[in-house]
């Protein structure tokens, strides 16, 4: 029973990271109707920036995370402006290929800058020399990383939901997601709104990168790619374009993955994750919380 609980908590924690990454995919997809394949690699850049700020320059981890967010925000805006904006009217296949190219570019740039040798990401989340709390004579363990990850995910979800529901800019993002032409006729600057969306998604990617590497501390140029694909899966699973969908999809995916590893097999856990996705999409093509927007005449 306690083992089960331990696995459940690990699943929720991993799922929280997926959920934070999935938000970036889902928000960008919602507004730009494109799959930003390079999103996973922005995570990796965020983790490296934080790593160097803390390990090489000895800055406080909080400062490291904030700087990683700043760098990733700028990176996200630049990627959108240089690579995707010129293709706004292009066929979606051209955009997808560009995004894949951008993903490889970031990985290769990271190899050039930081070599392909892995770095050991430092343990940030320790309090009083302990890296967690245990219950039942050490049979139920909660690491600070887990606690911080789950809390961060919850806070991000609440803040983002309030932002899109209540603020002028957030509503403008929803308007652009639904109908860009009509949004422009309202006086909304669609380009700025898309930039803001990339900025938010990329800042969240930095947070996700730090959380991911705190739990799985080997950092290398390809670190972001598998979690990126899984988080994209989570976004589709929950219903792409939907913020609560990203949360639900992320958490479920994390739990399924950890349970599959623990109870079935470590080797086929990824296959199980994707099999579940396929089954869900067969039954409900829009994902768990996805809505079918009615086609306009």
């Amino acid at each position: 029973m306690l083992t089960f609980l331990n696995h459940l908590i690990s699943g929720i924690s991993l799922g929280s990271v997926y959920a934070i990454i999935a938000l970036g995919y889902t928000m960008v997809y919602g507004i730009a109707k494109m799959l930003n394949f390079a999103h996973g690699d922005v995570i990796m850049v965020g983790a490296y920036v934080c790593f160097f700020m803390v390990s090489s320059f000895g800055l406080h981890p909080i400062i490291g995370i904030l700087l990683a967010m700043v760098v990733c925000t700028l990176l996200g805006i630049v990627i959108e402006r240089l690579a995707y904006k010129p293709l706004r009217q292009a066929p979606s296949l051209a955009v997808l290929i560009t995004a894949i190219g951008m993903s490889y570019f970031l990985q290769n740039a990271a190899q050039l800058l930081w070599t392909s040798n892995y770095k050991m990401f430092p343990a940030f989340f320790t309090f009083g020399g302990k890296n967690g709390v245990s219950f039942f004579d050490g049979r139920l363990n909660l690491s600070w990383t887990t606690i911080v990850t789950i809390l961060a995910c919850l806070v991000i979800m609440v803040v983002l939901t309030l932002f899109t529901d209540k603020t002028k800019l957030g509503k403008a993002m929803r308007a652009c997601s639904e109908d860009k032409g009509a949004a422009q006729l309202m006086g909304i600057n669609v380009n700025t709104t898309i930039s803001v969306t990339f900025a938010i998604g990329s800042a969240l990617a930095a947070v996700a990168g730090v959380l991911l590497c705190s739990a799985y501390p080997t950092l290398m140029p390809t670190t972001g790619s598998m979690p990126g694909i899984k988080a994209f899966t989570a976004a589709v699973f929950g219903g792409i374009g939907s913020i609560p969908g990203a949360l639900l999809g992320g958490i479920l995916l994390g739990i399924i993955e950890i349970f599959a590893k623990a109870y079935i097999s470590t080797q086929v856990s990824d296959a199980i994750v994707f099999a579940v996705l396929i089954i869900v999409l067969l039954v409900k093509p829009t994902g768990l919380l996805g809505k079918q927007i009615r086609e306009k005449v």
Partner: protein
Amino acid sequence: MLKVENINVYYGSIHAVKGVSFEVHPGEIVTLIGANGAGKSTILNTISGLLRTKTGSITFLGSSIAHTQPHIIVRQGLAQVPEGRRIFQTMTVQENLEMGAYTQKLNVVAEELDRVFRQFPRLKERRKQVAGTLSGGEQQMLAMGRALMSHPKLLMLDEPSMGLAPILVEQIFEIIQTLHQDGTTILLVEQNAQMALSVASRAYVLETGNITLSGTGAELTQDDRVRKAYLGG
């Protein structure tokens, strides 16, 4: 107020608008009538900046807007109610109206909202309702109310009567006249030539991308060619 001179608009190789020129003076209701596919929506979208003309000029309140971005054009006082309403389906009535006031300062939004609710009491009753669940007539009112939230000097309407029952068409045209009396200049695009000509100060007839006739609303109503082609004999 609005001067369109010799615009040519293309979709790829399709030449949709061929050297069109016309004017709208302050205080007028000008209507552009023409069959489906004549190029009416293309003209409005070019004025709004969503499409670009290859040649000629578009001047609004004395300044050129042919190369101005759409969101800036709205700020200058030119709003469009697009064909097919295009309200934000997943947002509430009030949120739709707030989007219409996107260019306005926060402190005047409440004032504009009051004004629009006075004009469209129906929208006030339904302010919390999700817009996608409104009836066709209500959606048209919402689309018009939304455009009015920016307090435009010139309001362009693209086929506001499309798909509505006759009684609702009457109602929409009454509203158009009220807006006009309240001081809004209007450029109205319609296939329903009869209704459009009955409210218009001046009118232009558009056929496959060319303006073929123009005159006052009364003149065109009497014109044989117009009667034959657009008024059912």
